[in-house]
Structures are given as structure tokens and as C-alpha cells.
């Protein structure tokens, strides 16, 4: 996990200062109308303020009480606004950093196919314009490389300073405005109009300007509005019921009761939770185009993971040396080490690494008499010629062709065990040769396990076989087990044949695999799963991944991918790390859990508030109701005031949790629910009893009521 965009601290001083001002600006009722719970709180705060003014004028001694209630009600609203402002503030700080890269860039707009150009402002570029970008230039807008190759510094977006290669054609053709060409030149066709470039969208997203309520947020808002209406009914009807019982309730205490009962805690924190969820993704270098996508990530049932790069390392690596024909293992190791010295391919380097680590060999520097045979894609062989020794290592058929071993056809024609060799030879159009029987067996075994065999020879004699295989990332199996515990099915997508795919799938512990996968296969698989009611997440980078990315519920496009892929997905991973899909799911779950937990907490809080307020309201008429005053609060007024203060302060107290999110643990839904119910449900019932009691003690010590 890396966090490259500088993450402002949870309680950064600058952000808090800005948020405090924003909290005041957000008092505008037109803005608050989006949040019914806090809107109601603001409306009744205004009413209590009027009552306070009336009490001041009447000067009957009740102004101290109504004034304090009014103040704390306003604090409740302000704290809720503040929570939202802090969450937004963190995004704004990042947006400012991004905006700095979007200064008015000059562009070299070319005419026709020539290399002549006019210098124009980047803002004047239109879709389809072709610009020339040379070393040292900022790329003026999002586009596709139509000609040339260049190394590009994309750190403005990704925070990663290592340059990446961008070239015409293929899956590395997309460039992003605001990034810098370091070397060479490219001609770029502009694919996004100014104002709607990737950076523009990113700024809008982190600032929350495009924020709309997500489906689940909407559903939760409905629940909270429903509860608010219920408590409005409860408090409105309480006045006549109290009147019947001989108590005339003041509007101030009824409003205090109302604000304590309506779910102000979750109402105040709800949008902060949503913004913080997006923010967590952004700090994780993933940009989601909508909050909906983050939510969907929490619901994902099936993950489609590309084998290469996600489950296995990008390249096949040497895993085992199998000597043949009586050769010692150590002798083979030494020979293959020498033969691979000049092989700079990842496979070659992995052989050297294996020889060093497993056989304790040191790589000798070839002497002056040594002649290096470098690996070439044509010969598929590398080697080293020493005086009297000709060491070779390479593809089985290529080595066999070299060894000039003579074979009789019947030996192989029997198919069965020799099928693989026969196939290799046929493909290579090499005449059949005789190989030692144990060599044949080793090659056969490796092929069947999905690996790639390499042959090693010395002076034309076969020494043994190197087993190159897909090395599964060391921690990936545990992570799949974790996903399974979350209830998520993992599906490996690979171009390998079914035999190889099955072998890797079982080793990595995925639940299913798609072998010899074409982009259409992925799409079909996604549709099939969705038909069964499941939500699918996948990542991809190629243009041919675009339909599947668009079809998936969560489609994560790699930043290095093509423009088409980036448009099709609903998230872009700036680090282009496909394993992140797993963390994205966890972030989505965390978002939903935080919402649920704080809702539960908010509602559970009400029980204690009733025990504080109801006896206080009726103690004059029915002193016997004092039995319900289980907290033994000092006076009716201090009881009501303490409940209101608790109700306001709890919002501030929970801001860090809302921003950080409730920790997600992959322990299965039932265990998770039990745990959270205990903490936020039962805790939500108990904590306010303690909190209100403490506040009441302070209030009475200070003689505030």
C-alpha cells in the first residue's frame, strides 16, 4: 500500500481553520436543505433563539437556560457543518496541488501531417487537434499519441517520479494533460476538450463539487428523514398529552427534546463519511468517477483478476533445476549460471538468482578468454564459450536442434510420455532426435504443470532442464483466503491453456478461472455473473478491455492504459497496480460500515436521552417519575441542558471516526455484525448515560443551570 499524493493529517491546522469558516458559510438554509435532519435542527435553533430574546426582554430569569439551549443547538448545526467542511477540506488541499499543474500551458498545434506548428494556448485546443510535444514540454491536454515514442513524467498525477514510456499504437498510447515529456518527442491527438480533461475531472472529484448522493446514502437519508418526522410527531403530540396531565411544557424544552431525539449524530456526519470514503481512495491513488462506484465496491461478489501481474509476477521465473543423464545438480547449476550470465531477460536473471540463492554460487566475471553468446529472440539461446567448454541454455527445441543428438522416430512416436516433445519438435520443424529418457520425462512433467522447460547443454550433451514457472506472489494466497472470508469469489483470467490455468489456479487458491480468455470471454463471464445477481469488479488497461470494464460494476482502469479503457471504467488507478482491487473493495466496505455503525450509535443514544429528559419534564406534576432519573441528574434544567450538550459534542467526538472509517475485518459477516452491534449498538445505549452524567456534574459545578 502506498500513499503518494501527500495526505494531509487528520487534524491539519490549515484545514481546520478553513473548515471553521466553511461551517459558518454552510449555515445558509438553502445549502442545509439537502440534509433534512440538520435543516430541522437549524430551524428549531432559530426558534429557540427568538424565545431567548423574548426571555431576555421579559427578564424572568429563564434567559440563562434558553440562551444556553439556543447556543448548543447552534453548535449542533455548526459541528455538523464543520464535519462536512473538514472532510471537504482535505480534498480541497489536494485539488489546490493539482490545480497548480494546470497553469496556462502553451501548445504546439500542428497543421495537417507536417511538423510545422503554431504556438497556441492550451485552452484553445479543440477535439481532434494534433499537437507536437517535445522534451521538456508539458503535455497540453489529454490525448492519444499518434506518432513517436517518449518518456513521460506523470508524477503530477500519480506522484510516481519514475518516467513511463508513451508510444503510438498499442496499450500505452494515452497521455494526460499536465504531465511532462522528458525525452524524445510525440505527436498527440487531443481527445478531451479543455475543462473536461482528466485533471479537471480529478479536481472536481476531490473537491466534491460533483458530489451527488449515492444510492445507499439516499436510502439512509430517507430512513433518517422518516425518523425525524416520527420524532416531530412525538414531540408535537407531547404538548397536549402533558397538558392533559397537568404540565405546561415550554417550547424550549420540547425543542431540546426534539433535537436530542432526531438522529443529528449520523445526520451531521453522513456527508462527511461519504466524502472521506472518496478521499481514502484518492489518497490510495485511485480516482473514482462517482461515489456510487465506491459503494458498489463494498458490494462486490466476484473479482476478475488478471493472472499476470496480479496473481503471479509479470514474468516466468526459474524455480527448479532437474539434472539428467547422471549429471549432478550442482554441476547443472554451475553450467546454467554461466550460460545465463549474458541473458538479460527476466527469465535469464531469475536463473542467475536461483543459482545464487539455492546453490550458493557466485556469478563469476567471465575472463578474457570467454566468449559470450547473448540471448536473442531469434536463436532463443544464450550461452558462454570457455576454452574447451561450450555452455548453452535455451528453448528445448532450439537446444535439441543444436545438440545433434540422433534419435529414432519410434522412440517418440509412441506418443504418451513423449507427446510434449513431439509437439515441440513438430512446431519447431526440427528433425526428431534422441534425448535421454529422464530428460523427456522432466520436460513432460514441467509442461503438464503449466511451466516452461528450458534445456541446458554442455558441448552438445544435455545436462538438464530448468523449470520456469509462474511464481505466485507470496502473500496472494492468504489474501484470497481473506476475500473468501469476506464472501468474495476470485476468478483468475489468463491466456494460458486450461491445464496450465488449472495448475496455477489451484496453487494460488482462486475459486475459478477463465483460461485462454479473450475480451469477449470476460464480457460473457461478467454478464453471466450479473444475471445471477452478483456484482463484479475487474481491472484492465487495454482498449479491448473497455467493454468488460464498462459492463463490470466496478471497473478499475490502469492509468497506463488506453484512453478507451480509462473512459470505460468507473475508477482509475494512478499506480496501475491491479492488486489494488482488493483494497478498493475493503475501502467500499469500510464506507458502508461506517455509515451503518454511526446510524446504529445515533439511534441507540436516544434511550439515555429519554431517561434524562422525560423525568425532568414532568417532575413537578409527577414527582414519582423521578424514579426514571436513573442518572440522578442534579436538576431538571441541568438534565435537559446536559442532554443537549452531549448531543452536540458527540458529533465533534465522532468526526475522527467518520473520517478514518470503522476498521474492516475480514472475519465473515456474522462475526462482523456481532462485533459492531456490541460496540455501536450496546455501546450507543451505554455511552450517553455516562456522558450525560459527566456533563451534568460539570454543568452543576459551574452553576450553568
Amino acid at each position, binding site marked *: 500500500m502506498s500513499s503518494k499524493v501527500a495526505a494531509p493529517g487528520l487534524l491539519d491546522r490549515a484545514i481546520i481553520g478553513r473548515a471553521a469558516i466553511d461551517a459558518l458559510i454552510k449555515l445558509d438554509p438553502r445549502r442545509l436543505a439537502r440534509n433534512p435532519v440538520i435543516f430541522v435542527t437549524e430551524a428549531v435553533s432559530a426558534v429557540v433563539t427568538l424565545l431567548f430574546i423574548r426571555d431576555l426582554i421579559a427578564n424572568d430569569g429563564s434567559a440563562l437556560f434558553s440562551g444556553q439551549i439556543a447556543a448548543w443547538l447552534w453548535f449542533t448545526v455548526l459541528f455538523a457543518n464543520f464535519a462536512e467542511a473538514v472532510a471537504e477540506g482535505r480534498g480541497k488541499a489536494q485539488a489546490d496541488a493539482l490545480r497548480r499543474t494546470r497553469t496556462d500551458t502553451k501548445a504546439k498545434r500542428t497543421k495537417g501531417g507536417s511538423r510545422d506548428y503554431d504556438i497556441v494556448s492550451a485552452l484553445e485546443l479543440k477535439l481532434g487537434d494534433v499537437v507536437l510535444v517535445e522534451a521538456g514540454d508539458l503535455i497540453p491536454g489529454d490525448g492519444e499519441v499518434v506518432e513517436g515514442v517518449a518518456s513521460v513524467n506523470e508524477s503530477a498525477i500519480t506522484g510516481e517520479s519514475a518516467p513511463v514510456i508513451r508510444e503510438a499504437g498499442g496499450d500505452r498510447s494515452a497521455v494526460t494533460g499536465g504531465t511532462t515529456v522528458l525525452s524524445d518527442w510525440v505527436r498527440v491527438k487531443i481527445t478531451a476538450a479543455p475543462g473536461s480533461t482528466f485533471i479537471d475531472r480529478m479536481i472536481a472529484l476531490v473537491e466534491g463539487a460533483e458530489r451527488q448522493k449515492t444510492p445507499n446514502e439516499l436510502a439512509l437519508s430517507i430512513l433518517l428523514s*422518516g425518523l425525524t418526522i416520527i420524532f416531530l410527531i412525538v414531540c408535537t403530540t407531547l404538548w397536549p398529552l402533558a397538558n392533559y396531565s397537568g404540565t405546561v411544557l415550554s417550547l424550549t424544552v420540547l425543542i431540546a427534546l426534539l433535537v436530542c431525539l432526531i438522529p443529528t449524530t449520523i445526520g451531521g456526519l453522513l456527508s462527511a463519511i461519504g466524502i472521506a470514503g472518496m478521499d481514502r481512495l484518492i489518497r490510495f491513488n485511485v480516482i473514482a468517477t462517482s461515489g456510487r462506484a465506491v459503494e458498489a465496491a463494498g458490494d462486490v461478489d466476484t473479482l476478475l483478476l488478471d493472472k499476470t501481474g496480479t496473481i503471479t509476477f509479470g514474468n516466468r521465473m526459474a524455480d527448479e533445476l532437474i539434472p539428467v543423464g547422471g549429471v549432478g545438480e550442482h554441476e547443472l547449476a554451475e553450467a546454467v549460471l554461466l550460460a545465463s550470465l549474458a541473458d538479460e531477460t527476466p527469465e535469464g536473471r531469475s536463473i542467475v538468482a536461483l543459482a545464487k540463492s539455492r546453490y550458493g554460487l557466485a556469478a563469476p566475471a567471465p575472463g578474457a578468454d570467454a566468449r559470450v553468446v547473448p540471448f536473442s529472440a531469434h536463436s532463443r539461446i544464450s550461452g558462454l564459450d570457455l576454452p574447451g567448454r561450450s555452455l548453452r541454455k535455451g528453448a528445448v527445441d532450439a537446444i535439441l536442434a543444436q545438440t545433434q543428438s540422433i534419435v529414432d522416430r519410434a522412440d517418440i512416436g509412441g506418443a504418451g510420455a513423449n507427446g510434449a516433445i513431439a509437439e515441440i519438435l513438430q512446431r519447431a520443424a526440427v528433425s526428431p532426435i534422441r534425448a535421454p529418457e529422464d530428460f523427456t520425462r522432466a520436460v513432460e512433467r514441467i509442461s503438464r504443470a503449466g511451466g516452461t522447460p528450458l534445456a541446458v547443454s554442455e558441448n552438445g550433451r544435455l545436462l538438464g532442464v530448468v523449470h520456469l514457472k509462474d511464481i505466485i506472489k507470496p502473500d496472494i494466497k492468504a489474501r484470497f483466503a481473506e476475500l*473468501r472470508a469476506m464472501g468474495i469469489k476470485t476468478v483468475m483470467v489468463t491466456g494460458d491453456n486450461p491445464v496450465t490455468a488449472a495448475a496455477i489456479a489451484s496453487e494460488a487458491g482462486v475459486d475459478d478461472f477463465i483460461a485462454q480468455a479473450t475480451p469477449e470471454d470476460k464480457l460473457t463471464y461478467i454478464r453471466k455473473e450479473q444475471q445471477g445477481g452478483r456484482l463484479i469488479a475487474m481491472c484492465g488497461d487495454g482498449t479491448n478491455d473497455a467493454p468488460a470494464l464498462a459492463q463490470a460494476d466496478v471497473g478499475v482502469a490502469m492509468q497506463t492504459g488506453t484512453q478507451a479503457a480509462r473512459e470505460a471504467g468507473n475508477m482509475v488507478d494512478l499506480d496501475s497496480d491491479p492488486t489494488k482491487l482488493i483494497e478498493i473493495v475493503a475501502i467500499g466496505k469500510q464506507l458502508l460500515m461506517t455509515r451503518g455503525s454511526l446510524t*446504529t450509535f445515533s439511534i441507540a443514544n436516544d434511550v439515555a436521552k429519554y431517561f434524562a429528559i422525560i423525568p425532568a419534564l414532568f417532575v413537578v406534576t409527577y414527582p414519582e417519575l423521578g424514579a426514571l432519573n436513573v442518572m440522578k441528574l442534579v436538576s431538571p434544567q441541568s438534565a435537559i441542558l446536559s442532554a443537549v450538550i452531549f448531543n452536540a459534542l458527540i458529533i465533534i467526538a465522532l468526526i475522527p471516526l467518520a473520517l478514518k472509517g470503522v476498521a474492516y475485518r475480514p472475519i465473515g459477516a456474522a462475526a462482523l455484525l456481532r462485533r459492531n452491534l456490541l460496540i455501536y449498538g450496546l455501546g450507543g445505549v451505554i455511552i450517553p448515560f455516562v456522558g450525560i452524567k459527566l456533563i451534568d456534574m460539570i454543568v452543576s459545578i459551574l452553576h450553568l443551570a
Partner: protein
Amino acid sequence: MNAIGLAQIAVVLATVVFAAVPLSAFIARVLAGERNVLTPVLLPVERVFYKLSGVDPAREQSWLVYTSAMLAFSVVGFASLYALQRLQNVLPLDPQGFDPVPADLAFNTSISFITNTNWQNYSGETTMSHLVQMLGLTVHNFLSAATGLAMAFALVRGFARAESPTVGNFWVDLTRGTLYVLLPLSIVVALALVALGVPQTLSGSVEATTLEGAKQVISIGPVASQEAIKELGTNGGGFFNANSAHPFESPNAISNLLEIWALLVIPFALAFAFGRAVLDFRQGRAIAIAMLIVLVCGVLIAYWAEAAGNPLLTSIGVDPSPGNMEGKEVRFGVATSALFAAATTGTSTGAVNSMHDSFMPIGGLVPLFNMLMGSIAPGGVGAGLYGFLVLAVVAVFVAGLMVGRTPEYLGKKIEAREMKLAMLAVLIYPLCVLGFSAASALLPGALASLNNAGPHGLSEIVYAFASTTDNNGSAFAGLSGNTPWYNTTLGIAMTLGRFAYVIPVLAMAGSFAAKKKAPASRGTFPTHGPLFIGLLLGVIVVLYLLQYFPALALGPVVEHLLLAAGKTF
């Protein structure tokens, strides 16, 4: 409390569950329209009904058409019942020569019976002719229960089906519910009651000469048949004003237990049938267990409160061992009176075998709170199940988020639309109960109907609106409800409590039926285990406590505290 009392309670509840499980298998088959034991006998009868009414039983309805059919049926039922009462003097079978029922009372009574409430602002034996009792009231005892059954069937189908545009056919559900479920059970129970001594005759009354030589007119009539459906259909409207406390409605301890059994058995069977319909018996079992726990808690609290007796009487030397016997029948005793009270309010029956008004404050709080919860444990026929499922949806929504997924119940995602519908339904109760209670508490004319002052009077008002809103119909006695104000407002409360609640529920059925069914995984929390049952109970207690805490505090709770201090009302 004593062992015999507890044993009586345990035996009745065990018999209910014992009968409900097999009955649920039968009901599930009826719901699905599959062949069952009664098909050979009843299929021809069923076909006649469809032929006569021109209904194509194979043609299913969308939720909107289903709801419209239900509403149309209810309107016709209301109009005909109203007409019957207003014209009873010119219609036959009026041996006692009763006058037409007054307009406001007829309005109230008609609403009351089509909504399965059976709130009675009148004494049946001295107000309604036999024709009204049989053709009007008893018929609606069947039809209103069958309507409830149909609505529950629709919601269950919503959960059981995937991507279906329809939720069933109202006319078919109504017909099958009546023919296959209610009628056969009623015949059995009615015969059992006759055997136990309940009268069943068409003559109006008998004259008796008392020991003093005075003449006494004793009302009788077709009691056993009405009694059976009164309990089985969770209706509660008695033939006599004294309801199941009357010796002709329930002559002895056995008939008392049989009646309790009858009013509980179908609602519990429906919960189990729900599980069978969604192809996971455990789901229904969890609902049934949650219902049972709420019911048992209520019974035990009421029994404890009543068995302790009245401390004021004890202090002046009255033996507290029989418990608080005020308003109770000696042949039933405290234990089964407490059980009856909790069961009749836990279902939406509202029949009584003792006067809840005379219970101790905490004993009276149990039936009151049962009704404030909407009579959902186990609830009325059909109404209990859909009421409980609405709460399950709300509970799953809040708790489901806590496992990090957008919530789903039985594979159905709960989204903004379902939440909106659930909240619309849930809102109706506090709006009616608290709104009308508050209005009544303000109006001097409405307060004049109270028998008692202080917190007990408040309990009487809240009880009346709780009882009508949730279509229970039991009375706290102290309130004289036969006034234009109460006849009208209680009538409105019954209408809203039934229809304003069920329309969103049916819309929810349509919405769920149209959704895909997501398969369960380890990421979805199980809704069949103890954790879910606990969650449901927690949500129910907190949700309703929060709504009614102030009203209860000013009513039974403070009355209880005052009683301890020696004050009564």
C-alpha cells in the same frame, strides 16, 4: 405466579407451535397454488366462484392491480355492511326488532369489520340483528382475514420471486384463503366449541325464571360459528358485549385455552409458511421465534403484574394469593387471563376474556405496548407477517450496512424505494395513535367520555387509538367510544392503520418481486440465526420505545409509580 399457571401458558404455546408447523406446510401449498389434501373437495367449488365472477385464476396481477382489487373489494364490503346495518329493521332475521344502527356507529362498525379490527362501540346482542351478525359481521370476519392473508401472500411472493412483474392474483388469494384455510379450520373449532357448550342457534333469546321468580331474557344465537372465526381470523368481535368473558362465548377453562390456541395458530403458521415459500424454512422459523419471544415476554410481565395482586388491597388485609382478580373470570384465573390479554393484543384479535382496564398498571401496559408495536407478535392473520417483515427490512437496512454491504434481505437489495415505502408504512402508526390521542386530550368533549381521570384516563385514550390503528379492536373499557367524535376518529384510525399501511407494503412486494435475487455468501449476514433474532428484537424494542416512551411514561408507568405511593385513579 405459580407452576400451574406457567404450565398452562407453556402448554398452550407449545400446542400452537406444534400445530403451526404442519399447518404452515399446508398454507405454503395454498399460497403457491399447489395441490393439497383439500383440493379434490374444494377445487370444483373454487372453479364455480371464478366462473361466476369471471376471474381467470391463471392471470396474475402487478402490485398496483392487486392493490386496486383489494381496495375495490374493501369499498364494496364497506358499502354493503353499512347498508345492512342501516336497513336491518326492514330486512329479515331480526327477531328482537332492532332499530337501524345510527349513521356514525354504522360507519365505525363497517370500517371496523372490513379492516379486521372488530372494534365494537355497541353491544352486539342488543344492537345488531341476526342477519347483520351472520351475513354482515361473520362474513366479514372471514373476508377481512382472507384479505390480510392475501396481502401477506403478495409480500411473501415478493421475496420468493426474482424479476417477476406480478405478485399473484388478489381474487384467487382471497378465494383460496377463505376456502382452504379459514373455513375448514372454523368448522373444526366451531364444532369443538359446541361440544364444550357454546350455543349455536338461530332463535333470538330464551326466557328464564329466576329463583326470585323474576323473568329474565337471555340472548343467544349463532354464537359458536362466530366465535370460531372471531379467534381464527384474529377478528375479536364478540357476539356478546362481554366477549370471551361471557359464559356463552367461552363456558369453561378448556374453551378458554382452545380460543387462545385458535387466535395464535394461523399467524404463527404464516411465519413458518413464509420460510417454506422462500425455500428456507429457517428464515420463517427465525421470524416465528422472534414473535414468540415478544409474546412470551409480554405474557410473563402481565402474569407477574397480575399475580402479585393489588398492593393497596393487600395492605388492608386482602389475601393476595389469587392475584388481581378485578375484571377477571374466576373460571379462567390470572395466568390464562394474562395469556389471553397478551395473545389477543399480540395478534390483532382484540377479543377479551378479562377487562384490561382493570389490570394492574404494568399488566395493562403489556396489551397496550403490544398494540403500540402494531400487534405484530405474532400479529393478525396476514397483517402480523407483513408488519413483522417491514420491521425486518428496517432492521436489516441499518444492521446490514454494518457488515460493509448495501443491505439485502433474502437476496433482495434494500434501496431508496423500499426504504421510502417502509418509512411511509411505519409513520402511519405514531401519526394516528399519537395524533388522535393528542387531539382527544385537548378536546373537552372527547375527555368527557373518560371513566377515569389522571394517567389511567390517558391510557384509555391511547389504548383506544392504538387498538383501532393496528386493527386490534380490543377495548380498555373505561372509554365510552360511542360518540360522534370517537366513532369518526376511531374509524379514520382503523382505515389509515389498515390501508395507508398496506398500500406501501404491497408496493414493496411489487418492488421486491421485480428485483434480482442475489445469492447468499459469507459476506451477507445470515438472517436465520440467533444473532438476527436478537437484532430484530432490539430494533423492535428501541424503535417503539423511542416512539411511545413519553406517552407510556405519562400513562401506565406513572400510574404504577403512583399506585406504589398509594394514589389511584
